[in-house]
Structures are given as structure tokens and as C-alpha cells.
């Protein structure tokens, strides 16, 4: 568990000093009842040492911002876009947070606990 402000430094240390060369994933967990609602989780992998590392940090619903890791890991851009789609996490410094799995015009973030389970937002009008 780390603070969001430490993320860039720790990730840089992981990459340069400890050879964590693969950025596996960034995702989030929604804890609707807790004051810091979102838990953002980063996964790294080292092909030299075959070890995984998980970094976890908490952000609030009012300001769900963590720094981007795109300058360090190019592949982070796609996963940050997905995380932004599904949970509405903002990645400060990533200026390309277009929808990647969802589509333009989709309102809300479907993996948040308060998204209605069966709420559909059709692109083609239904016939009935």
C-alpha cells in the first residue's frame, strides 16, 4: 500500500534498479462504503527474476487521480484507458483517455458498484 504521489518514483526504481520490465496491469477495486473509495492496483513483472510485484493505493471518489506510468511503460496507456472506462480513475499526465472497450457517448462507469446492473445504453435504437 503506497501513496499515489509515490507511485512514479517507486515504479521508476522498480524498473531501473530491480529489472521489473513488464507492466502487467492496472485495475481498481470499488469499496463504496469506505472514505477512500477506490483502490488502484498496479502489477509489475520481472522477466529476469520471474517475480511479480503488486502496488496498491487508495484514492477518493471526489478526486480519483493517480499519476500515469505511460512515460515509463508504453503499454500502460491502454490499461489506463480501460481502467478509466470501467472505474473512472483519472491518470494525471495521460492525455489519451478515450474509451477503449466502451464507446463514445457511454455515460457512467460500468464496474462501479453503483452502476445499475442491467442498465443498457444502446447505440442502435431498439425495434421494440
Amino acid at each position: 500500500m503506497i501513496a499515489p504521489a509515490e507511485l512514479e518514483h517507486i515504479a521508476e526504481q522498480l524498473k531501473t534498479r530491480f529489472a521489473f520490465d513488464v507492466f502487467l496491469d492496472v485495475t481498481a477495486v470499488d469499496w463504496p462504503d469506505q472514505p477512500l473509495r477506490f483502490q488502484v492496483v498496479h502489477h509489475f513483472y520481472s522477466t529476469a527474476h520471474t517475480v511479480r510485484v503488486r502496488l496498491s493505493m487508495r484514492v477518493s471518489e471526489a478526486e480519483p487521480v493517480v499519476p500515469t506510468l505511460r512515460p515509463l511503460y508504453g503499454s500502460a496507456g491502454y490499461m489506463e484507458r480501460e481502467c478509466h472506462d470501467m472505474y473512472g480513475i483519472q491518470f494525471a499526465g495521460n492525455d489519451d483517455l478515450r474509451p477503449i472497450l466502451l464507446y463514445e457517448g457511454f455515460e457512467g462507469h460500468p464496474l462501479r458498484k453503483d452502476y445499475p446492473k442491467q442498465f443498457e445504453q444502446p447505440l442502435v435504437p431498439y425495434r421494440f
Partner: protein
Amino acid sequence: MYGKPLPVVSATRDPAGTFEYLTTKKDELVGWARKFSLFPYPFVTACCAMEFMAVSGSAYDTDRFGAALPRFSPRQADLLMIVGTVTQKQAPILRKVYEQMCEPKWVMAFGVCATSGGFYQNYASLPGIDKIIPVDIYIPGCPPRPEMVIDGIIKLQEIIANGKHRILNDTF
């Protein structure tokens, strides 16, 4: 129904046993021709594709029903087979493919996801393709057995054989 002869009534027979001319009903003749020449366009999106391959392969062989040759352009196809889950994001593509097909055209919902959405009842999936395009035959099952698919094709052939076949219409 495959035992039924060509829906043609002979008028006269010359001594050699060949027909000079035949009389029949236009709808029956055209329907008979069309039901054995279904050119499917497989709109294959998910795991039902495995079952589609099985039913197209030699063990079950949809070629026996004249529905074997997939056309990979919707303009050359007259049977749209939606095989698998269709997401909301794919719905405009499916709608466009359907509109690009020339008349006459039929639509088959292959598998429970295409039929009703199946167990996907969420933000991402279309709850049945009949929400956006008309469907002629539904084949439920997750995935459907090849026998069910063949049964569906035969039922669709019955629909075609018993249907009206307009040679000319208002838009042609």
C-alpha cells in the same frame, strides 16, 4: 419433405418421355429453388463458432441442405447467421451488414446469446439481436447441438418453401 418431387405438374409428354412444357406455381418453384441455395454469411463473434465449424464440417455437413458455402461479403449472401454474443458496440456493424444484404434475405440467431442475450444481462451485451434486426429462425442452446442447427436450417427451408416470393416489388 425431401421425398417430395419438384413441385411441377407435367402437361404433356412426348413419345420420348421428355417434357415439352411444365406448369407450376411461381411461389412454389421459386421457393423450391431458393431453399436449396442458401448462401450464408457467418457473422461469427464468439464461442458458438466452434459449433458452427462442427456443423459445417464433414460429420454433419450443412452442404447436404445447400447451405454450405459461406460468402464473406454480405452482398452475395441471403442467409445471415449470427453466431455468438453481439455487444452494444458491435450492434451498428451488425445493422450495417444486414442492410447491405440484398433481398431476399433471412436471418438466423445461432445460440442463446444471439437469441436473447443468454446469461449476459449487463451494460455490454445486446439482449437478443431481434432488438435491432428481424429474425426468421432462433436456435437456442449454449452452444446448440449440430442436430439443432440442422433442424433450424430445415425449418427455415420450410419457411422459404411455403413463403411468398415476389419477383418484382415496389422498390425494384
